[in-house]
């Protein structure tokens, strides 16, 4: 594999692996350990998703491959909710795209940590980036490193995946969902998740617009496309609101 490389190149590759004087294995383990608490909380989220997935009739195999290949919790919640017969393939994929756009920003912010790394490292490591281990890595005093990030990602993946499967096992022994009010479970879960995303009053208008456009679009559009219309409208409202606020602040500044 390294046949074409000079000794110097190999040394620089080796040095890239080493960070702060410790070997990557130690950094991996450290990342894993420090992410444990957030991974345990992700596992409980996963369990909720597993119960909902089994109520929808999704198999353990389907959910496991989704958890490992997509590995983005909230978009998996959305996909499972949209899972109907016939399967809205296109709408689910577009919803996943819209839901996970933020990963572009998250991964763009990792440039410094990946500086000087070969493309191959980036290609493998970037799949292990989640909100949680990204946040833990970025808040490190030394700004973290790739091995630490990947260690946290492995921890997240193991706990997330196990949580989902455990939830499915529990879900399969529960009585039919309607008898327990479980048809409201998706709404309840999403309301609770949205509540944790609350950042302040600036969220109110975008959320109202998203709800309004979704309700109207649902009347006129086939399938699940109202989700996309509502989400994009709400997000556009947030942008317009931030521009108006920015202009007001600018005016205020000039008056002063």
């Amino acid at each position, binding site marked *: 594999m390294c046949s074409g490389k000079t000794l110097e190149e190999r040394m620089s590759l080796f040095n890239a692996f080493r960070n702060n004087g410790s070997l990557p294995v130690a950094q991996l383990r450290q990342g894993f350990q420090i992410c444990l608490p957030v991974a345990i909380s992700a596992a409980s989220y996963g369990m909720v998703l597993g119960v909902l997935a089994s109520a929808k009739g999704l198999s353990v195999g389907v959910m496991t491959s989704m958890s490992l290949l997509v590995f983005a919790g909230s978009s998996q919640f959305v996909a499972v909710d949209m899972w109907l017969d016939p399967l809205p393939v296109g709408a689910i994929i577009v*919803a*996943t795209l819209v839901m996970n756009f933020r990963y572009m920003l998250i991964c763009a*912010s990792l440039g410094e940590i990946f500086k000087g790394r070969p493309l191959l490292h980036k290609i493998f490591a970037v799949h292990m980036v989640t909100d949680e281990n990204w946040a833990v890595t970025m808040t490190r005093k030394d700004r973290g490193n790739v091995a630490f990030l990947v260690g946290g990602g492995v921890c997240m993946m193991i706990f997330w995946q196990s949580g989902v499967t455990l939830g499915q096992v529990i879900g399969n022994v529960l009585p039919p969902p309607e008898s327990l009010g479980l048809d409201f479970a998706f709404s309840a879960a999403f309301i*609770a998740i949205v509540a944790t995303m609350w950042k302040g009053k600036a969220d109110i208008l975008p959320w109202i617009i998203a709800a309004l456009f979704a309700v109207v679009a649902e009347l006129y559009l086939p399938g699940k496309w109202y989700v996309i219309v509502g989400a994009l409208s709400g997000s556009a409202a947030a942008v317009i609101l931030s521009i108006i606020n920015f202009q007001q602040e600018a005016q205020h500044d000039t008056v002063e």
Partner: protein
Amino acid sequence: MTQLSDVEVILTILGMAAVTYSLRLGGLLMGSYLPQTGKWAVAMEKLPSTVLVALIAPSVVNGGPLHWGAALITMFTALKTGNLLISMSVGVVLVGVGRAIM
């Protein structure tokens, strides 16, 4: 649900995986070329919550007073406790009990 064709299921999961991975790798490779602040950043930041709101709005609105009440109480519980499982259970139990009474 078991009637779904395997091809469609595989296509959906691979499609989801492909777009998510592209966003991750694209973000990392484009890095500094992407706007970290400004209107695009605001839009991307707000998308996850607006997707979820758009997803539930029609079913909650069409669900009638029982769902409206349960939605409000679930939201309140989530804001107070910050716990997904607790707030969800409160909402589900309320709808279950409410339905049994009515």
